[in-house]
């Protein structure tokens, strides 16, 4: 029964990634644009080179990228490359491979975004649970809810700007931007570097946490109120249970379930979801790379990032699917009963 469930989910995971990869393959070819030709024309125009050898260069590049082969053959090569996480070379920074760029940029993005997401989730859930709990003091809601409402409706870049202006520029508590001092070299084995990275990450993390925490908190608050109306919450009180037990095991435990699905989806966007923050804090992370790839028509880099994005969402959902039956015993059997 359990094994069956896992196998089904793994199959699902592979299908999702395969479908996404296929769409990723077909879609750009339907646009009728030729990235290499465009790139060459642009370079020729800007460098003032002669146009005579352009045709030859175009043919050469097509051969290099395998674009002269029949479509099905291109597709097979493409899929087998995707399976090996090999997305070829970046058009713009040619000798570097796409994977190499993704890894070097992702290294800067992943740590601070994941920390921000986790802080926002845990803090928001706890705060929301307290706000929704009927045993909490009234003043808590009176004080906390209005700022949460404001934060949840303010766009993230505004929060980032306010933080940069006041905390970094006026009060000079934290750096204005950059993932680490310009004088330093990226070296993840040095504690000093990691310390500097953490110091530089405080404001970017804060800008994400402030906005996302309020969302989690307001959602959790609403779920708590719903759960408190359930018969099992009333019966738990009639059982004379201690408040702490009712709060954690009966109310929060049940109110948490929908938010966990939300967390899985959010974690899927861990790599790309920080482009706003990265732009404002001048991080050369994955988010800003994605933006650059779009504006430069760097198709291969774009494919690579999109596929990685799809994979991380699919994996996050998969992991949540694996954990969910442990959290909600009703789930695992649903498939069996149809």
């Amino acid at each position, binding site marked *: 029964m359990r094994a069956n469930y896992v196998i089904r989910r793994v199959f699902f995971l592979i299908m999702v990634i395969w479908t996404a990869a296929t769409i990723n393959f077909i879609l750009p070819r339907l646009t009728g644009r030729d990235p290499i030709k465009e790139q060459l024309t642009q370079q020729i125009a800007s460098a003032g080179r002669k146009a005579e050898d352009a045709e030859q260069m175009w043919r050469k590049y097509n051969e290099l990228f395998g674009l002269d082969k029949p479509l099905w053959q291109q597709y097979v090569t493409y899929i087998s490359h995707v399976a090996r996480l090999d997305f070829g070379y970046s058009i713009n920074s040619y000798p570097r491979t796409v994977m190499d760029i993704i890894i070097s940029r992702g290294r800067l993005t992943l740590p601070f975004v994941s920390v921000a997401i986790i802080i926002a989730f845990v803090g928001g859930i706890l705060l929301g649970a307290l706000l929704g709990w009927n045993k909490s003091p009234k003043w808590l809601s009176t004080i906390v809810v209005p700022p949460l409402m404001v934060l949840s409706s303010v766009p993230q870049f505004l929060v980032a700007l306010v933080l940069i202006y006041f905390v970094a520029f006026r009060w000079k508590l934290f750096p204005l931007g950059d993932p680490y001092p310009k004088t330093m070299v990226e070296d993840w084995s040095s504690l000093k570097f990691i310390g500097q990275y953490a110091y530089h990450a405080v404001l970017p993390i804060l800008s994400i946490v402030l906005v996302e925490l309020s969302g989690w908190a307001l959602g959790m608050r609403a779920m708590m109120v719903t759960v408190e109306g359930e018969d099992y919450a009333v019966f738990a009180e009639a*059982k004379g*249970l201690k408040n702490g037990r009712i709060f954690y095991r009966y109310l929060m435990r049940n109110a948490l379930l929908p938010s966990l699905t939300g967390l899985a989806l959010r974690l899927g966007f861990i790599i790309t979801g920080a482009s706003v923050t990265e732009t404002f804090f001048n991080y050369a992370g994955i988010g800003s790379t994605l933006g650059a790839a779009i504006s430069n028509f760097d198709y291969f880099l774009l494919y690579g990032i999109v596929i990685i994005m799809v994979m991380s969402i699919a994996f996050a959902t998969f992991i949540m699917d694996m954990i969910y039956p442990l959290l909600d015993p009703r789930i695992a059997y649903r498939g069996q009963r149809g």
Partner: protein
Amino acid sequence: MSDRPVIEIKDLKVYFYVKAGTVKAVDGVNLTLDPGVKMGLVGESGSGKSTMALALMRMVRPPATIEGQMFLDGVDLLTLKEEEMRRVRLSEIAMIPQGAMNSLNPVMRIRDQILDGLQDHGVRMSRADADKRITELLEIVELPKKVLRMYPHELSGGMKQRVCVAIAISMRPKVLIADEPTSALDVVIQRQVMETITRLVNTLKLSMILIGHDMGLMAQSVDRIAVMYPGKLMELGDTRDMFAEPLHPYTQALINSLPVLGKRGVFNGIPGIPPSVINPGPGCPFYDRCPKVIEGLCVKKMPPFREIKPRRFVACHLYEGVN
């Protein structure tokens, strides 16, 4: 067993202060329950019987307020601190909930849901002892041992309600409050669960307040019946006397509305609807549906709830002169 009533309610009032006015869900109820007695509390929807149950557990939430006195074995529950009241729940006064389908926490095993009530009332025991005790409780309510390790969604409605019964008796309380314990079940299961509850109440010598609207079920299950009509107690007496000679016109109408085996024809309903409990008038709440209404009197003045014969109480102007 002492003769002192196990529960004594004096002038109990549960009011909800809302924008539209004051909702008098329970308005001046007096009631005593002797040890080992099963009492039925009947009334239509909205008559305040479930609020009574919650009030007895002291579980009405703001904006509701409770006034009056509620003695459990001589202790006024309304004077207890919140933590003291928490300890009283389950260990002295326990509840079998109304919504059988949804009264158990969906994400906890049955074992843990029985155990946590015991633990929070100071019962400390080893894993093996806990399993033994819980298995015994499950046996008492006629459930197999394997239920221990199951989740609520794996049980039928009747089984879930049996688990709730097991929880309710787990600390051997003095009083059991069963709030329509079978209303979510089909009639066959209803009867089985009701038989289990009655058997347990008898063997464990508990007192019970059974809340419901089904006079037929009451006739089979309880010793005494209290009839409620929005916010007020109308009549109280032993089950036999009540069916033999209902005094209050409302009780008469209720008993008349029961279907009789073999009799054909139209059912005798009670015409009209119950009055609103928001800002009720000064008179008897039943006056506008009452076939025996005394013009000019019933609308103005609520009759007192008096003992007109031994063990027989009624609130009606018709019996003003009696005794």
